[in-house]
């Protein structure tokens, strides 16, 4: 391939790449962490996090002023937000839609009440049901029952209300929800935007803040009312802002630092620009590869670019520094095989990540792999023709004696290093139970302060956390609702047994057509009912002729059609049904959130009895917290396997190339020592390790081997120029990865603190332990 053709090809590829990047979709949402190949249970978790009701909740507290001012602003705020299409529901405890809900439940009571059956409308059934209602009149609740008794003597409204959530209701002050101490007015809103729609969440949050400012200014300008807001949407927005900010910050820092180093070394703007060429090509190729393979490029992946810059710039440094005297052909012959092997070990390390079910990790792997490979290829094929024969590289040999003296010093420390490594290994072995962070929260970008604020709001408003959900899937709505009813019967038994406190079901407000038909068919006709009533009420204090309204309502219910989804419009029950009965591309899903029984059992539900009860009903019972924990453990287990596989691949590659057990050992020993020392150091520094640290260990080996290999080139010590090139290359790599250590995004930070020091140690230890010829 001629140089001209290579150049043309490269230019075209760069243009095409730029076009792809221009059209790429970038995302900074949580899908980075969500499993790429989810199990059925994990799919439920993913769906809930992306579009579930809980992911669309915003909790708002109004503080300051007095209780009346807060209530006024709460009402005003609700009035403003309720009209906006961005919000599906805005609740503040005002008695607003309760009337509509009650009307719906009353109007359709004969299709909705679980108590409606043929037996209930026999003479005996009527006698018992009406007798119960009369007894209820005598109770303290009697005042509520009395007005409805002539039309609902069998108590079908109460049969429904008894099943609804009688659990925790938020406290209330001046007619609106308040925190338990009454010091904050509380609102709960559900956004129209999905939890995964960060733009939509950001817009909704902006609207809440702006509307609050207007409402507060209108109602109580001098009261100094404040707004506190939290919810998954806010976390998503904040986390995206953090990642965006950090990506540009980290790339800028790393680029600037490397440019300074390169200029210091080259003292030539031309060489410096040429040296950055492979880096830019690599970074571009990385994004293109990820975009083409994954469709979406995560912000964190781009943030990893700052490390890639440090790693990819090495190749041009090797080329410029090492080919200074011998020219391009000499370099290709003498150094390129070693560089190539280094590239391959890096590729093996990053390549292992490609197989991860953790999408973020797979992306990082692909990005780094394509980047490193491209940078190496551009250095090998594009850089020489562009740079020309005359590199005008300044002589750096004068630095060599100092480096050689340093190496001699290092060699004297070998035993100390070994002792230190053994101590570090012992420390880690003793503390092995405390070394690892136990759950996924280690990777979360949510700050502790934000998490605490969220917890506080959540407990103030008793917001649902939706930890336990039974999920049913069915091909159509009717079969989904029927399945929900079957599962509901099993859950009713669990409620009665006290295993669970209760559950929600869409079938409560929208029963399946089959159930509605069965209930309607239970109703006696206009001739049977009065006759039965007379018999049933013969000895009752309630005279049958006072129940004309009842007879008329039953007749109307027999003639009326079934309840369909539009019948729920205008009630808050519509929202409940819509959030629990979902149409999916491949059918329908029903969610049945389960509530713990509370009391002695606390906030946990015993999993096994629920699983056993639901077995065979087609309902999948999911404990979200458990799924989260398993998810992380799966990731960790998988990352361990992948790291070992990557390590094995690197060892295999080296073994095949080096063809000597001794040389293999002398390449690997410093790398392993570096890993042990870094991990020991991190542990001593109080860092709890998570899976990105683990990946970092693999990268120490993958990246560090590049340096170790130079010390084992044909079993002779590198000459002065090579040493200088390695020192500079190592410095840029350490800068690249080290920059990540500045990040507050745990994923990047972990890689930075592990690989940054690891790369330097790998070089120093390789120098210290290399060969034996000097002795």
């Amino acid at each position: 391939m001629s140089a001209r053709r290579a150049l043309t090809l490269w230019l075209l590829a760069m243009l095409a790449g730029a076009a792809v990047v221009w059209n790429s979709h970038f995302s900074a949402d949580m899908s980075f962490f969500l499993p790429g190949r989810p199990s059925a249970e994990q799919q439920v978790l993913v769906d809930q996090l992306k579009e579930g009701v809980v992911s669309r909740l915003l909790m708002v507290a109004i503080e300051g002023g007095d209780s009346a001012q807060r209530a006024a602003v709460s009402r005003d705020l609700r009035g403003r937000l309720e009209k906006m299409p961005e919000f599906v529901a805005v609740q503040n405890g005002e008695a607003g839609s309760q009337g509509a809900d009650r009307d719906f439940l009353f109007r359709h009571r004969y299709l909705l009440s679980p108590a409606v059956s043929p037996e209930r409308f026999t003479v005996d059934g009527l006698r018992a049901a009406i007798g119960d209602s009369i007894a209820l009149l005598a109770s303290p609740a009697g005042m509520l029952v009395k007005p409805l008794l002539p039309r609902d003597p069998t108590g079908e409204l109460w049969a429904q209300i008894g099943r609804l959530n009688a659990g925790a209701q938020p406290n209330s002050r001046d007619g609106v929800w308040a925190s338990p101490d009454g010091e904050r007015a509380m609102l709960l809103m559900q956004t129209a935007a999905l939890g995964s729609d960060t733009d939509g969440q950001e817009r909704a949050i902006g609207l809440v803040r702006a509307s609050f400012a207007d409402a507060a200014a209108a109602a109580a300008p001098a009261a100094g009312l404040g707004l506190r807001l939290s919810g998954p949407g806010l976390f998503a927005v904040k986390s995206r802002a953090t990642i965006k900010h950090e990506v540009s910050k980290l790339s800028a820092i790393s680029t600037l630092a490397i440019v300074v180093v390169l200029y210091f070394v080259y003292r030539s703007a031309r060489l410096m620009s040429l040296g950055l060429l492979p880096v830019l090509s690599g970074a571009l190729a990385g994004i293109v590869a990820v975009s083409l393979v994954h469709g979406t490029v995560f912000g964190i992946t781009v943030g990893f670019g700052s490390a890639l810059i440090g790693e990819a710039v090495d190749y041009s440094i090797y080329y410029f520094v090492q080919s200074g005297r011998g020219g391009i052909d000499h370099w290709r012959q003498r150094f390129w095989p070693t560089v190539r092997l280094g590239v391959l070990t890096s590729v093996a390390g990053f390549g292992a990540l490609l197989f991860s079910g953790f999408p973020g990790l797979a992306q990082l792997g692909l990005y780094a792999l394509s980047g490193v490979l491209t940078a190496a290829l551009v250095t090998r094929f594009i850089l020489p023709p562009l740079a020309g024969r005359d590199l005008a590289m300044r002589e750096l040999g004068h630095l060599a004696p100092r480096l050689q003296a340093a190496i001699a010093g290092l060699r004297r420390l070998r035993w100390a290093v070994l002792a230190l490594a053994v101590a570090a290994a012992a420390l880690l072995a003793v503390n092995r139970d405390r070394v690892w962070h136990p759950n996924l929260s280690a990777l979360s970008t949510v700050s502790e302060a934000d998490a605490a604020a969220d917890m506080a709001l959540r407990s103030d408003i008793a917001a649902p956390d939706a930890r336990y959900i039974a999920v049913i899937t069915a091909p159509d709505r009717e079969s989904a609702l029927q399945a929900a009813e079957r599962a509901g019967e099993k859950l009713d038994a669990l409620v009665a047994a006290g295993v669970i406190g209760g559950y929600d079901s869409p079938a409560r407000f929208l029963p399946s057509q089959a159930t509605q038909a069965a209930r309607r068919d239970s109703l006696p006709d206009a001739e049977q009912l009065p006759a039965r009533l007379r018999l049933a009420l013969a000895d009752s204090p309630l005279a049958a002729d006072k129940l004309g309204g009842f007879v008329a309502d039953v007749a109307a219910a027999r003639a009326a059609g079934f309840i369909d989804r539009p019948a729920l419009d205008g009630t808050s029950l519509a929202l409940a049904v819509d959030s629990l009965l979902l149409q999916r591309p491949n059918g329908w899903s029903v969610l049945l959130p389960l509530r713990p029984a509370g009391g002695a059992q606390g906030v946990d539900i015993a999993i096994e009895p629920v699983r056993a009860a639901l077995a065979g009903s087609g309902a999948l019972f999911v404990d979200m917290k458990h799924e989260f924990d398993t998810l992380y453990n799966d990731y960790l287990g998988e990352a361990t396997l992948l790291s070992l596989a990557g390590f094995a691949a690197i060892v295999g590659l080296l073994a095949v190339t080096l063809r000597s057990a001794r040389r293999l050992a002398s390449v690997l020993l410093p790398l392993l020592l570096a890993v042990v020392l870094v991990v020991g150091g991190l542990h001593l520094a109080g860092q709890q390790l998570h899976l990105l640290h683990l990946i970092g260990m693999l990268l120490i080996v993958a990246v560090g081997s590049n340096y170790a290999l130079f010390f084992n080139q044909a079993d002779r010590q590198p000459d002065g120029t090579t040493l200088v090139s390695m020192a500079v290359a190592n410095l840029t790599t350490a800068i690249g990865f080290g920059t990540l250590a500045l990040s507050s995004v745990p994923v990047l930070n972990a890689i930075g603190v592990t690989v940054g020091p690891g790369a330097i140690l790998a070089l120093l230890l390789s120098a210290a332990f290399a060969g034996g010829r000097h002795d």
Partner: protein
Amino acid sequence: MIKRLLGTLLLLAIALPASAAFDVGQLMQALASHKGGKARFVEKKFISLLDKPVVATGEMTYTAPDRLEKRTLTPKVETLLLDKDILSIERDKQKLSINLANQPEALAFVDSIRGTLSGNRTALEKNYALHLSGNLDKWVLTLLPSDQKIASLVLRITVSGSRNQVRSIEYLQTDGDRSLLSIEPVEAK
């Protein structure tokens, strides 16, 4: 028991000189001296819809100043417990709790009983105009709702009793229905 006795003695000492004009203040003092006890009750509800009154019977336990437990035994077992501002009703394994602080109307209603039992004049006068007739041995306290919302439900509440013991509470509702709660103290053994 000793306390109660002392309370009664103290009460007599206060009541004697003023017996000529028995007023709300004195009644409240008398009632406030009642530290609690157990009683049987019969509650009759006269409801126009029904041909006969519905009758419920059971036991009440009052612990001053803000705990009242009403256990209905017939026709159906049901427990109503008022503990500070939490009203809970348990019936057929179902339990319902209401925080009265959130329900001003229900609170006013509950205060008519609680205020009377504990002799809390301030709480009573917040929602009702008080009229007292009779003397310490046989008094009748009438509560007329002053709040519009309560007045739309209850026309009048009549509490009668003897000394520091409430013996009956009658609610007359705006629709003409009424309920009569008769209380018979059970002497603690």
